[in-house]
């Protein structure tokens, strides 16, 4: 979230789409209700189903699953066409004014300039800013156009037209691009009748009527947007809408991802994912060659109009990276060995989640260690994952309940003879439940909250860190005594915990914050941190080896003052829901990101009643109720961009160069399995850079084969993923799986509620009882009548009801396809094609 949970109460307008917070984040959703109660805020809900969120909305619009970009693109078009944009914000805080060189082409026929049909990827060098100075009207720029084949870098001196009139400025290109998303086109693609779309567009953009900047709108989403082969670009479209309307950085605004689990925000921050190191440092590639080469590639240089300023905070990347290497390898990370650069694996292809199972099925991945991760159930294409595990040598599962993954060798449908043929050795280790663990989680609002253990682990179960340490220390001992391939990083990894076999998490938390190894001085303030002391914040990080820090964005969470994550002062002096002394949020306890943008160019809040930060001319610094997410002494006249993590300092309507794999502006593409050809460009229906997988387990269905019903998958408020099927209370609330079937379709097929139905995708079949409902209505998409059905994900083959033989023992994700978004590598769990029959 750019903002936070409590902050939603500051909204005047809410667009909830691709998320169902009433069901999946009920206690956070209270703040949306609070906005309605306290401010008469309006709520628009757009979803394939009439959900429990929709039940409290002012306007509900039923959309075809996966057509979100068309809807949002239509909103962008509406906002521009009706002048519902924030002009000052747009011209100064976004790249609307920046010029794009000739040679860049919009995807009229579905492809941007630079597409290579063989590699199915883009040469993105034409997706760049033009160099030069200020221009007016359609006048020429002073700089040269980008040369094809030249090393792609953003120009230092960007050409720009503050009047936003130049035909090649981002704003004009954006306007042209989305002018194709007319209400009629939106209706054809999304199935939303034109009048309903216009009602939603009018309502949402009404807050910017007549250029009034006082009101704020928020966009709230979740995996309904990420679970697509173009998920990143859906979120981008929303970000563009929010930037256009000047809603980012402001209390009650922003683009707010509601993450689905208690600590996947933290897992992303600390890089439990293949393409990052802690703090979003990009992993090194073989081509980088050495530490300097790595840093040169990933440390951006400022790119902005000459008259503007850019903080370009990522220019500090070497400080973050060296401090990380010092944290991991201590004395073994020296300037002379490139800070142990060789110790890091070099990554130049995708090693994402679905690739694990694809490569395991191909015999390349031979071992899997899964801690609290039920890979088989989570899917997609569960039978592919089960078949992959059959080929592995070993599987280690650490969990708290019996689950599908460790029991894959006796999944339904596997005969006794087949079980004998499965040679995988499987270890099932009992780990700790939440009440038994201390440590921190990061919530969606980026708050790190320490929790305390209430009870010991039951039976012979152990804390997860004890299990991991037990395995690792044994591996290290083997390498120490027997040698082996490249043992150096294993032997030199820092492990100075007081209890090495069960590292106290407080010590790890302090390591993550970081400490000074030598004396460090902050030249500006004169502050000194002595060797051994905890660092007060990431401004103190150094690239000379004098600081160690496990995750730079969490630097400041455990200082010499103690664990800020343990703070529990609920006070909220400003009344804006900031709660500055409750726990700690990254970065540096800033609660709303980009909050400089809550002020006009001169540094005054757009809305005085929701003043977050402001420029204090007397003190010559930024002050406020929140911690300024900005260079504290940058004067407004210097025109520093509020988006300090971007080298251009501005919000990106246009995502230049390598920012996105599939286009600098989001374009609507059909899901990989779609009932229609894309009405915008039928010859390029789906996302051109998305690759299908090719194992025999990978099949993709078409409407022509009879898969003509759109299926979406989701959670219920009564259950949590594949976990609460072990909890008798939750099982009591919803005892068994079901398929939500539109009443009209049920009538046509003679299906009554409670009767069993069979749902088939080209990959598998799923049988469960039908819930016949009026909450999903038929739609007319591109002139054709269509139905959508929905299946909750929560059941499997191990659970209270499953073990008692009282319910079907099937996984919803047997149905979903292995295909992912090209930017985030998240699978398309929503909007695939199925057949529906009576079972």
């Amino acid at each position, binding site marked *: 979230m750019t903002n936070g949970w409590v902050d939603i109460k500051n909204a005047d307008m809410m667009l909830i789409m691709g998320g169902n917070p*009433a*069901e999946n984040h*009920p*206690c956070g*959703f*209270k703040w949306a*209700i*609070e906005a*309605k*109660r306290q401010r*008469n805020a309006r709520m628009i809900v757009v979803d394939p189903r*009439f959900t*429990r*969120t*929709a*039940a*409290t909305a*002012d306007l*509900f619009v039923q959309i075809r699953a996966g057509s979100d970009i068309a809807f949002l693109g239509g909103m962008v078009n509406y906002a521009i066409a009706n002048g519902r944009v924030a002009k000052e914000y747009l011209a100064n805080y976004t790249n609307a004014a920046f010029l794009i060189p000739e040679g860049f082409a919009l995807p009229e026929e579905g492809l941007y300039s630079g597409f290579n049909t063989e590699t199915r990827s883009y040469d993105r060098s034409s997706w760049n800013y033009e160099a030069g100075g200020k221009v007016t009207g359609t006048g020429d720029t002073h700089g040269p156009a980008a040369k094809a084949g030249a090393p792609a870098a953003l120009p230092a001196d960007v050409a720009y037209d503050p009047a936003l009139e130049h035909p090649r400025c981002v704003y004009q290109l954006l306007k042209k691009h989305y002018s194709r998303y007319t209400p009629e086109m939106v209706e054809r693609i999304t199935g939303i009748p034109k009048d309903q779309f216009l009602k939603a567009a009018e309502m949402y953009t009404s807050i910017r009527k007549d250029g009034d900047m006082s009101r704020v709108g928020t966009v709230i989403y979740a995996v309904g947007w990420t679970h697509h082969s173009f998920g990143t670009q859906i979120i981008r479209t929303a970000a563009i809408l929010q930037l256009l309307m000047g809603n980012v950085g402001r209390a009650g605004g922003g683009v707010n991802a509601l993450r689905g689990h208690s600590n996947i925000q933290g897992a992303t921050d600390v890089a439990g994912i293949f393409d990052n190191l802690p703090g979003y440092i990009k992993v090194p590639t073989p081509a980088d060659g050495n530490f300097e080469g790595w840093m040169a590639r990933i440390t951006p240089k400022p790119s902005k109009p000459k008259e503007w300023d850019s903080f370009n905070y990522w220019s500090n990347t070497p400080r973050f990276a060296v401090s990380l290497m010092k944290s991991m390898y201590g004395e073994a990370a020296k300037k002379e060995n490139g800070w142990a650069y060789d110790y890091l694996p070099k990554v130049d292809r995708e090693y994402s989640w679905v690739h694990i199972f694809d490569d395991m099925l191909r015999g390349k991945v031979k071992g899997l260690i899964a801690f609290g991760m039920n890979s088989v159930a989570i899917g997609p294409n569960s039978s592919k994952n089960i078949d992959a595990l059959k080929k592995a040598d070993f599987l280690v599962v650490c969990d708290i309940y019996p689950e599908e993954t460790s029991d894959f060798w006796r999944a339904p449908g596997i005969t006794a003879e087949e079980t004998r043929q499965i040679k995988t050795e499987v270890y099932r280790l009992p780990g700790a439940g939440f009440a038994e663990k201390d440590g921190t989680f990061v919530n969606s609002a980026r708050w790190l909250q320490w929790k305390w253990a209430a009870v010991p682990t039951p039976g012979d179960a152990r804390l997860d860190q004890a299990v991991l340490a037990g395995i690792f220390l044994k591996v290290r001992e083997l390498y120490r005594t027997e040698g082996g391939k490249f043992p150096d990083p294993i032997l030199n990894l820092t492990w100075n915990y007081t209890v090495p076999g069960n590292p106290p998490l407080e010590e790890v938390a302090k390591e993550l914050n970081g400490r000074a190894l030598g004396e460090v001085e902050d030249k500006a303030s004169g502050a000194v941190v002595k060797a051994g002391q905890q660092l007060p914040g990431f401004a103190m990080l150094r690239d000379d080896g004098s600081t160690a820090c496990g995750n730079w964005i969490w630097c400041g969470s455990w200082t010499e003052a103690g664990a800020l994550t343990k703070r529990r002062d609920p006070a909220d002096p400003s009344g804006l829901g900031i709660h500055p002394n409750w726990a700690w949020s990254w970065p540096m306890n800033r609660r709303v990101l980009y909050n400089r943008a809550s002020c006009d160019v001169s540094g005054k809040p757009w809305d005085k009643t929701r003043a977050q930060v402001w420029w204090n001319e007397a003190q010559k610094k930024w002050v406020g109720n929140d911690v300024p997410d900005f260079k504290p002494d940058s004067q407004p006249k210097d025109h520093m961009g509020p988006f300090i993590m971007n080298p251009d300092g501005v919000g990106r309507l246009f995502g230049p160069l390598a920012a996105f794999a599939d286009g600098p502006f989001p374009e609507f593409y059909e899901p990989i399995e779609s009932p229609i050809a894309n009405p915008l460009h039928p010859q390029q229906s789906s996302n051109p850079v998305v690759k299908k997988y090719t194992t025999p387990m990978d099949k993709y269905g078409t409407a022509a084969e009879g898969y003509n019903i759109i299926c979406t998958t989701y959670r*219920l*408020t*009564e259950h949590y993923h594949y976990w609460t099927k072990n909890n*008798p*209370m939750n*099982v*009591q*609330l*919803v*005892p*068994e799986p*079901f398929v939500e079937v539109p009443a009209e379709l049920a009538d046509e097929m003679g299906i009554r*509620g*409670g009767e069993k139905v069979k749902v088939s995708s080209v990959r598998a079949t799923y049988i469960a*009882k*039908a*819930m*016949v*409902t*009026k*909450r999903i209505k038929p739609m007319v998409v591109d002139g054709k009548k269509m139905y959508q059905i929905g299946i909750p994900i929560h059941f499997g083959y191990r659970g209270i009801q499953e073990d008692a033989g009282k319910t079907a023992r099937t996984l919803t994700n047997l149905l979903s396809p292995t295909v992912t978004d090209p930017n985030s590598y998240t699978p398309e769990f929503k909007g695939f094609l199925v057949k529906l029959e009576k079972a």
Partner: protein
Amino acid sequence: MSNGPLQIKAVSGQAGTPPGQGASRDYDVCKLIDVTTCIGCKACEVACVEWNGYPFRETVFDNTYQTMPDLAWNYYNLIRFNEHTTPEGEFQWLFRKDGCLHCADPGCLRACPAEGAIVQYSNGIVDFQQEYCIGCQYCVTGCPFNIPKFNPETKKVHKCTLCSDRVGAGLEPACIKACPTGCLHFGSKDDMLDLAEKRAAQLREHTSHKNAGVYNPAGVGGTHVMYVLHDIENPEAYGGLPKDPRIPLLVKIWKGPLKWLGNLAMTAGIVGVAVHYLRFGPKKTEGGEDK
């Protein structure tokens, strides 16, 4: 909410002034359910079962999100789910937390012949005291909302206590505390009436719910659990909330003009029980009974 033990205002099956009445008068308490902000999440159901420590029931899928068809002796609190289309054609998914309304004039208490089995505290909570319940189920007949539920194993009747144990200790009821959206409120009856009226007015003024109103039916003397409804003219749409609930006439007569007769009958009944006891000894307690 009060400090110290709750004071009793009325006791079932009992003649004369209730003991303790007037000793202390805490303000009337009230639960307000704003169904327009209810998300049907069932947190209140779970909080209720968890607090009361009741055993789980086996449920079956019944073509609805509703946990079970009706309240149960160990399930005091049930969200009723209804798909509804208004006369204007607007589709609504209505959620209503069903449970005891703690009537100011409780039909159950009026109907109950067992001394002390149903008490009404001075703060308005109507509470069943199972140790005095004789299992006659007259309270079920007396209730216009079909709330009390009989446990056939223990032969006792149960219903929402408004967490009288928590309220007595200065806490709010468990469902109130859990409710994620704050559609449940708890406070004095006056405060809740005020809040409810303001919310209904806000809905009428700022949303499409021009018939929003407060459900606090006069037929039972008003209630200590009230609703804000999108459409006060159509409470039946919310899973059978009666538009004009009244205590059954028979119950009124039974505990009104004929009260002396009832007491006489009760006395006769007790004498009968005593005779029975003398002849056959104490009744064997069945297994599984809560003690």
